[in-house]
C-alpha cells in the first residue's frame, strides 16, 4: 500500500527535526503547588472524576499531577520543590512504537504525542512504557449518565472541542491541542501567523504564579524559548534520551541565608 507510507509512523529522528514545535517551561521555584493547573486541566479536557474508592486505588484521571517528596525529618524536614508532572510530549516517545494499532502516534505536523481515542483498544502498553507515568486509563465508564445520573446536569459544562472518553481508552495531556487548532484556525481566518502567547493550554492560562510558560520552541524569541535557556533548566529523566518538550527550572530549596 502506498498510503501506508503517508501515515504518521514512529520514525527515527534525523538531527534537523530535533528543533520541535510546541514546548513548555515549568519553574519549580515559583510553583506553589496550588493545584489550579490540575483543576483547569480537568475542566478544559472533560476529565471525569472517579470517586473516592478508585482515587484511593490510583485510578484518578489527572492529566497533570503535582509531585512532592520529603527530605530529612523534623525539625529539619524540607519538602522538595513542587513538581508538576504531565506528558512531556517527547520527541522520541517510548509510548509510540509499542502501540499495536497506532492509537499512540506522533503528530508529524505539531511534533507532539497524540492519543487517538477512537483507535485505542486498551492494551495499556504505552502507559507501561511511559517513563513519566503521564498516561491515565479509563478503568470504567466514568461519563455514563445511565450509571451516574448526577452527571446529567454536570455534563452541561462538557467542552465540545474535546472528545468524551469511554471505558477502556487511554488518555493523556494533549498540550490542549484543541486550543492550538483553534488559534491556528483563527489566525488563518484573518491570515496572520499565530502570535506568541496566543495559544495557552488550560494549565498555563490558570497558573496564578505564572510558573508554566507555553509556546513555540522553534522560535528563539518566544517567551518559552527564552525561559528554557535559563541556567536552572533541566529535563526529567534526561538520561533516557526521550527528548522531552517540557523543560523544568530547578527550585532552590535553600535560599541565600542572610
Amino acid at each position, binding site marked *: *500500500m502506498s*498510503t*501506508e507510507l*503517508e*501515515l504518521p*509512523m*514512529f520514525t527515527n529522528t534525523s538531527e534537523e527535526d530535533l528543533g520541535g514545535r510546541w514546548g513548555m517551561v515549568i519553574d519549580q521555584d515559583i510553583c506553589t503547588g496550588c493545584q489550579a493547573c490540575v483543576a483547569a486541566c480537568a475542566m478544559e479536557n472533560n476529565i471525569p472524576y472517579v470517586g473516592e474508592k*478508585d482515587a484511593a*486505588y*490510583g*485510578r484518578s484521571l489527572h492529566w497533570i*499531577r503535582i*509531585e*512532592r*517528596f520529603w527530605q530529612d525529618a523534623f525539625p529539619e524536614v524540607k519538602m522538595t520543590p513542587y513538581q508538576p*508532572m504531565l506528558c512531556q510530549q517527547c520527541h522520541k516517545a*517510548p509510548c509510540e*512504537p*509499542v*502501540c*499495536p*494499532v*497506532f492509537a499512540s502516534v506522533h503528530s508529524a505536523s505539531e511534533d507532539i504525542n497524540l492519543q487517538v481515542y477512537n*483507535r*485505542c*483498544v*486498551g*492494551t*495499556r*502498553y504505552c*502507559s*507501561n*512504557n511511559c*517513563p*513519566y*507515568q503521564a498516561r*491515565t*486509563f*479509563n*478503568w*470504567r*465508564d466514568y461519563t455514563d449518565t445511565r450509571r451516574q445520573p448526577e452527571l446529567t446536569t454536570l455534563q452541561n459544562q462538557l467542552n465540545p472541542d474535546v472528545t468524551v472518553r469511554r*471505558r*477502556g*481508552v*487511554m488518555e493523556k495531556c494533549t498540550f490542549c491541542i484543541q486550543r492550538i487548532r483553534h488559534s491556528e484556525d483563527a489566525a488563518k481566518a484573518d491570515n496572520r501567523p499565530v502570535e506568541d502567547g496566543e495559544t495557552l493550554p488550560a494549565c498555563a492560562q490558570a497558573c496564578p504564579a505564572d510558573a508554566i510558560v507555553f509556546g513555540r520552541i522553534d522560535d528563539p524569541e518566544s517567551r518559552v524559548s527564552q525561559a528554557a535557556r535559563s541556567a536552572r533548566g533541566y529535563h526529567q*529523566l534526561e538520561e*533516557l534520551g526521550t527528548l522531552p518538550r517540557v523543560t523544568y527550572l530547578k527550585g532552590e530549596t535553600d535560599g541565600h541565608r542572610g
Partner: protein
Amino acid sequence: MAIAARPMLPAKAHAQEHEDPREHLMHDPRPRGEMNAMVLESMHTAGWRFYAAAGVLTLLVLTCFFYAWGYMIANGLGVAGVNRPVFWGIFLVNTVFWIGISHAGTFISAILRVMKVEGRRPFTRAAELMTTFGLVQAGASIFMHMGRVWLGYLLFPFPNERGLWPNFHSPLMWDFLAINTYLLCSTMYLFLPLIPDIAMVRDHATGWRKIPYRILSLGFRGTEGEWKNLQTAMNIFAFAIIPVMFSVHTIVSWDFAMAMRPGWSSSVFGPYFVIGALHSGMAAVAIVLFMIRSTMKHMKYFIRAEHFNLMGKLMLIVSMAWAYFYFNDYLVMWYGGDKWEKILQEFTEKGPLGYLWFAMLIFNIAVPWLILWNRKWRSTPWLLASVGLIINIGMWLERYIIIPVGLTINRMPFTWRLYVPAIEVFLTIGTISLFLLLYMLASRLIPIIPVWEVQEGQAAHMLRKVGKAEVSTVSEIE
C-alpha cells in the same frame, strides 16, 4: 550402568526399578486388535465421575469464564485489580503462563521425535493436546486484558478505507502474530499424527458417530503410499515447528525486554523465557500423564514408570537450566547497579511482596532438585505429578513477580502503588477449568494414545542378547 548400580542398592529395591527391559512398553507388545480395543474402550468408558467432573467444570467455565468476562466487558477493567502504575495484571501473567504450558507439547512430540527418543511414543498426543488447548487460554487471556476487546479486530492487518494498518513496530503485534502462527502450526501438527488413529476409530465406530470420523480421517486407508506421505509430512512439520516454538516464547519475552522499564529490558529474557516455558510445560505434562493414567482405562499399560522417569529427568535438567538463566539475569542486574533496577530488586526481595519471591525460588529450584535426583522418587507417578504442580505454581509466581510486582516500581516513585487482584482470580479459575474441560472432552473424542506410534515402536524394538544382559535395540522402519 546396571552393573555399576548393583552394589549401591539392595537387590530388592533394585528389582523394583524396572531394570528388566521386558517391563518397557516397547518390549511388552500386544496384538494390534487387542491394543486398538483397549484404546477404544478407554475412549467410550465414561463413568459418573467423568460426567460429574465435566458438569462441575462446565459450570465453572460458564460462571468464571464467560459470565465474569462479560461482566468485565460491560463494566470496564475497573472490576479488575489493575491500576496505575500496575497497568498489566494477572491477565498477561496467565497469557505467558499458558504459552509456557503449551511449549511442552511441541517439545516432546517434535524435538523428541526428531531425536528419536523412544520413550515419548505413548504420550506425544497427550502433550500436543496441551499445546493446542493451552494456546486457546493464552489467546483468551490476551483479549481479556484489552480495554476495548470489541475493537480487537483492529489488531488484524486488513485493507480498509482509512489506509491504516497495525503497527508492526509493536512487540505486542509480533506477539499477536506469533501466537496465531503457533496455534495454527501446533493444531496441524496435532492433527497429522492423529489421522491414522482417527481412521482406526472410524473403522470401529458405528452409526452417526462414524460421520465426523470419516470426515476427519480424510479417507486414510493405511496404504503404503499414504504412510509414506504422512511420515514425510510429519517429519517436515517436526523440523519446521521447532524454530516456531522457540521464536514464540522469545517474542513473548520481547513484550517485556523491548519495553523501557527497570528489570524488563534485559537481553537474556528471550532464552530465559523459553526455558521457563519448558519448565512449566514439562511439569504440566507430568501432571497430565498422572491424571490420564489414574483416571482412564488401560492407561497403566501404556504409561509406565519408565515414562515418569523420563519426564523426571527432563524436569530436573530444565529446572537447572532455568536456575542458571535466572541467576545470570539477576547477577547482571545486580552488578550493573542501575539505580532503578537496584530499587526493583530490593522491592521484590524485601518489599511487602517479598514472600512471593522466596516461594518462587523454593518451588522452582529447591523442590525439584531435592526430589527429582532420585530415580525411585521421580518414577513414582503421584510424587512426580505433585512436584509438577508445585513447579507450575512456582512458574506462575515467577511471571507474577515479573509483571505486577515489577510494574509497581517505575522511574516515578510518586506513583508507586501495590496491585490487588480482583475479578482476575475468577477469570484465572475460568481459563483453567476451560482447559481441563476441553482436555477431558478430547480424551473421549480422540485416542489419547497414538496407537499406531506405539505399535510402530513395538514392531521396531527387540531384545538382543549381549553376553548375559539383554539389550533393547530398535531398528529404523523404512
